[in-house]
């Protein structure tokens, strides 16, 4: 499948900050399930953009703006060819022993209820168990963009019983790790098969490490394994390690941010 992505992030300030610095994880790498045909990042302000790589192998851009600015728009555009790999991520950049992905982080720490969730879904076969876990999470959670935010931990979201894809992923990761299955957070984009192109945010899901198979993608918000529809951008121990933007600004106030994402299929004509 050939997918075209356009991801626009716009900041507006009532009092302009003197300067700002952001670390962007918005650029995907190719692996067996996806081939990057083209990709670029644009910033409408007078800025400095420096490309590098984090210890997890994600491509980062450090954006610095050293003059006051009232608005800032980041635009990411690209074309990606994706393939169905039955959920398995192969030939991705791996810098760590999977053991590292058993670490707890504040966002992915298990609560007693998550431990119960993990225990209730134990299966002899790990793949089976992860599917089971995904189904259980999707069965209980209600998708709701107003009940949680980026600071919500797995335990909190599970107790609320609602949240967004990021919360689903955190719960999955926390529960998998309880069962000693290495798991990690993935951010990216998702092409909707129902024809809806415009979205208000990027997507997030999880990967679990299965012996003999390697990393397998589980998307608890959609209740599916990694498909042709997914574009995988960054991964890490939790959201904070894979967030599209982590930033700080000097002075300034009244920041408001809006995100527009469109994920569509490239027409055959354009392919030629």
């Amino acid at each position, binding site marked *: 499948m050939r997918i075209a992505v356009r991801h626009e992030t716009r900041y507006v300030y009532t009092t302009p900050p003197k*300067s700002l*610095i*952001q*670390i962007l994880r918005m650029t995907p790498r190719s692996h067996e399930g996806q081939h990057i045909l083209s990709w670029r990042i644009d910033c409408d302000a007078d800025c*400095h953009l*420096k490309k*590098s790589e*984090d*210890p*997890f192998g994600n491509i980062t851009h*450090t954006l*610095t703006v*050293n003059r006051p600015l009232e608005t800032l728009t980041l635009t990411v555009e690209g074309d990606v060819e994706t393939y169905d790999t039955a959920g398995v991520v192969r030939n991705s950049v791996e*810098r*760590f*022993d999977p*053991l*590292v992905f*058993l*670490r*707890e982080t504040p966002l992915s720490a298990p609560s007693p209820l998550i431990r119960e969730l993990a225990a209730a879904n134990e299966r002899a076969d790990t793949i089976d168990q992860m599917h089971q876990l995904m189904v259980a999470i999707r069965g209980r959670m209600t998708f709701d963009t107003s009940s949680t935010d980026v600071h919500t931990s797995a335990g909190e979201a599970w107790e609320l019983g609602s949240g967004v894809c990021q919360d689903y992923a955190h719960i999955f990761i926390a529960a998998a790790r309880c069962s000693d299955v290495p798991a990690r957070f993935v951010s990216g984009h998702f092409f909707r098969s129902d024809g809806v192109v415009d979205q208000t945010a990027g997507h997030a899901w999880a990967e679990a490490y299965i012996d003999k198979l390697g990393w397998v993608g589980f998307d608890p918000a959609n209740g599916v394994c990694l498909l042709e529809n997914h574009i995988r951008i960054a991964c890490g*121990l939790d959201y*904070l390690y894979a967030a599209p933007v*982590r*930033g*700080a600004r*000097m002075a300034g106030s009244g920041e408001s941010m809006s995100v527009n994402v469109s994920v569509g299929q490239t027409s055959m004509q354009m392919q030629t």
Partner: protein
Amino acid sequence: MTFFDEMTGADGVLRAPYRIIHDWLETSPPELLEARRAQAEHMFRRIGITFAVYGEKEAAERLIPFDLIPRILSQSEWTRLEAGLKQRVTALNMFIADVYGAQSVIRAGVVPADIILRNACYRPEMAGFRAPHDIWVHIAGIDIVRVDDKDFYVLEDNARTPSGVSYMLENREVMMRLMPDLFMRNRVAPVENYTNDLLSCLKSVAPVSAPGDRTAVLLTPGQYNSAYYEHSFLADRLGVELVEGGDLFVRDDIVYMRTTRGPQRVDVIYRRIDDEFLDPLVFRPDSALGVPGLMNAYLNGNVTLANAVGTGIADDKAIYTYMPEIIRFFTGEEPILKNVPTWRCRDADSLKYVFEHLSELVVKEVNGSGGYGMLVGPHATAQQIAEFALKIKADPANYIAQPTLQLSTCPTFCDAGTGPRHVDLRPFVLSGANGMRVAPGGLTRVAMKEGSLVVNSSQGGGTKDTWVIEDLHHDPL
């Protein structure tokens, strides 16, 4: 229970290094000691050496009790201790470099992978990083105890941001002002060059890209931090700026400080802020103490942080239990300093033993510090033991247990005159591109309460001046 007293030994025979102090104590009337003690307290309070206790308000700036009677080590004892400290810190540095690099210590099976990789103190963010000159722990504080006149035991390695060195320096200054006559009769190895050594150590590890005239700063969380006095004291002695996060900023991966003449490049940061607070873009996003972008500058080799990020993996109490093997693995030598025998509650056999002997053991949280979150079996009530047992049961891997050490005692001035009080010792080891240095002596901490084994200043412990004196001592009088 009898303890080894460093003045009178186990058998009541006066030990040589203490001869002069003993005479002095015998001949000084208690009123004189009391007057000197009051003077010392007055001096400390006037210069503002205070210590803010966690959980208390600004008003609660306390003095750490200072004991007039020095703790004494002979030069030959010190020589042995110093060699052991250098060996240990060398191994700590090699271990950390390996953990974030080749991980041969894991592959060789010396330390189990999960103890490192799943450790909260291991920082995946540092994987693949090579610290300038391969030095990670520039300043180490190794807590030492003794139980007899032969061996020194390492109680704890402090490889993150060890504190207390200002007390070592101030104690000496106050002692020299109050009791110059005692120094006339003993030849005491000086400690005052510590800050000079520290500055050259810091400058020696500046990034290669740094301009010829290297700028070092001391980064503090601010004046409400419990160790703020020490931060300002050290900055003053080092002759470097005492900066807070807000004084620094990063542009194009270079760190600058805001000065009255505009931005000035910073090459080395002696940081007294924990890893998690250093950079909100990489660690805790809510940290207001750090500098956004600092980690990028650091990982790109444009600034050196001392100590390096991620050194906590070396002073973790779970890793501590492997230190003898780690020393052998990296240095090929037998450890000079002993480890306190330790049971790892993560091992089933050890856990069983610990549960059976809780009333005799000291149980510590693997990541606890400052004497918090620990159980001192022999001093605990049955209820306290029962409650702690539940905590261990819930998360065994989080605990280690050690025998209750019969810490040595030193004569200490107290209300009832002079009595033996338990002590430990924190020597400070500097590692730079210019070699290793250990200030002779270190900070002696003393449990001021009779019989107490808790020397932490946050729990009412005091300090003493620590003397390393010449072995062959000819009394000039």
